[in-house]
């Protein structure tokens, strides 16, 4: 499998680039555009019929990504106004039954009656790495971004922890830890509240052509990773073979995570609700419309508006001068 190599942003590189002046971004060479959802993006396929919920993937994620976990400075700066509360998981690092800044993957379990049988389905949950990710698109600070290879990452050197990414994520995936990050160096009492954390698809391994930890750690081969078009084919074939269902292919306009289950996802979602296994840090499995659909439609209107203005300005003037001539008021 060939994985796209990615330039990792160092803090020094970031500051140097800012020193060069933001205008450099307007140079065409700096703007490397590539269609989202292309064959350069990697997608994962999760065969839920194979998952036994052993948690080996969770353990591998926690262990391998531990160096990236936050080490907050305490006491936290007192925040103004008082309604802004710190979010502190640093004393609860062991929690592994939900998403936290120290746990980027957890196993959800749903029990459903299907085709006359009681079926238990385990679902490894984490960021789905959306094709057009609202968390990255709407981050006002440029801290969340999508790489060429489809990985959606939050830059922990830049994130201010305002949690907008969590608010706009249809699954509320990113999790906040107070007391770390850039906000401490700015106005810690008045703006920001830490750093947001989530699955980064083990970007440093993927950049070297390796597979994410949760993929390799699974004793049952639940997950596989590969170029998006190929994984779509495989997900569809698997769903056909098991007479099953796919989640993540259409949700939120498409993601790079495809769950294939023998049981419909609306039943799984209902079972999670019944078991009170949904809520903060425990994402749902419901249908999700494309969060960015309206923006996508509005985009061309916005981009073409100047041309409409030029046309109105020019035509209006010509019409005006013709009228002046007809009226005998021409210069």
């Amino acid at each position, binding site marked *: 499998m060939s994985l796209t190599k990615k330039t990792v942003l160092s803090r020094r590189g970031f500051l140097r680039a800012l020193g060069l002046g933001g205008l450099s971004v307007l140079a065409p060479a700096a703007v490397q555009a590539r269609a989202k959802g292309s064959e350069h993006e990697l997608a994962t396929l999760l065969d839920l019929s194979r998952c036994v919920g052993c948690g080996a993937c969770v353990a591998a994620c926690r262990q391998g990504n531990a160096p990236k976990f936050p080490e907050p400075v305490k006491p936290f700066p007192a925040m103004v106004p008082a309604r802004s509360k710190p979010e502190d998981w640093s004393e609860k690092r062991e929690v592994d039954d939900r998403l936290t800044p120290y746990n980027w993957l957890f196993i959800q379990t749903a029990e459903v009656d299907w085709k006359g049988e009681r079926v238990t389905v385990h679902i490894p949950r984490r960021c789905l790495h959306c094709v*057009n990710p609202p968390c*990255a698109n*709407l981050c006002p600070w*440029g801290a969340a971004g999508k790489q060429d290879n489809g990985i959606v990452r939050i830059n922990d050197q830049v994130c201010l922890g305002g949690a907008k990414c969590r608010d706009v994520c249809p699954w509320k995936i990113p999790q906040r830890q107070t007391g770390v990050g850039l906000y401490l160096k700015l106005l810690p009492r008045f703006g920001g509240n830490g750093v947001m954390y989530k699955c980064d698809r083990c970007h440093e391994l993927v950049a070297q052509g390796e597979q994410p930890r949760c993929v390799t750690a699974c004793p049952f081969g639940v997950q596989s990773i590969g170029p998006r078009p190929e994984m779509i084919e495989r997900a569809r074939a698997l769903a056909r073979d098991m007479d099953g269902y796919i989640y993540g292919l259409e949700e939120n306009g498409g993601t790079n995570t495809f769950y294939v289950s023998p049981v419909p996802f609306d039943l799984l979602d209902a079972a999670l609700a019944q078991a009170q296994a949904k809520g903060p840090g425990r994402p749902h499995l419901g249908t999700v419309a494309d969060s*960015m659909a309206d923006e996508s439609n509005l985009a061309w209107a916005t981009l073409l508006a100047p041309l409409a203005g030029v046309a109105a300005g*020019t035509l209006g003037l010509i019409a005006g001068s013709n009228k002046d001539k007809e009226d005998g008021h021409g210069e």
Partner: protein
Amino acid sequence: MANRPAPWISRLYLGTVAALALTGMAQMPIFKRYYIADIPGLGWLADYYLTNKLHYGLAALLLALCGFALARWLLDWRRRWRLTALGRTRVLFLAGLACTGGLRVLKNRPDWSFDPFTVMLVDWTHLGFAVLLGLAALAAVVAGRSAFARPRG
């Protein structure tokens, strides 16, 4: 005088820029934190998706107005008017805002993707130009020279 920029242009410009500043600020998580969205009638300021779409719509209006003014300027107004120093400065900042904003709009489309570093620089530059435009507008008001242009001669 028929060729004088009509007052509706400055009124529309001011209104649109003010609304863009508001919806732009609403992209940062501050209106809820600072109780502004709690004021009756202002709850929508904490709706990121709504304010983002409004920002797109208002940007379209401002860009159309800029296109209109550009065409008129090149074809007509510049013969009678010339830009003041603060006018030129603000035009430059507006151009910067339009370019970086346009890139952000493209980046949000499903068919365009820029690398995270470029996105960050574009975001910061957009924010920087917005601050600079605000400062230039403030300077123009304080100096009593808010007009972009004055008659030649």
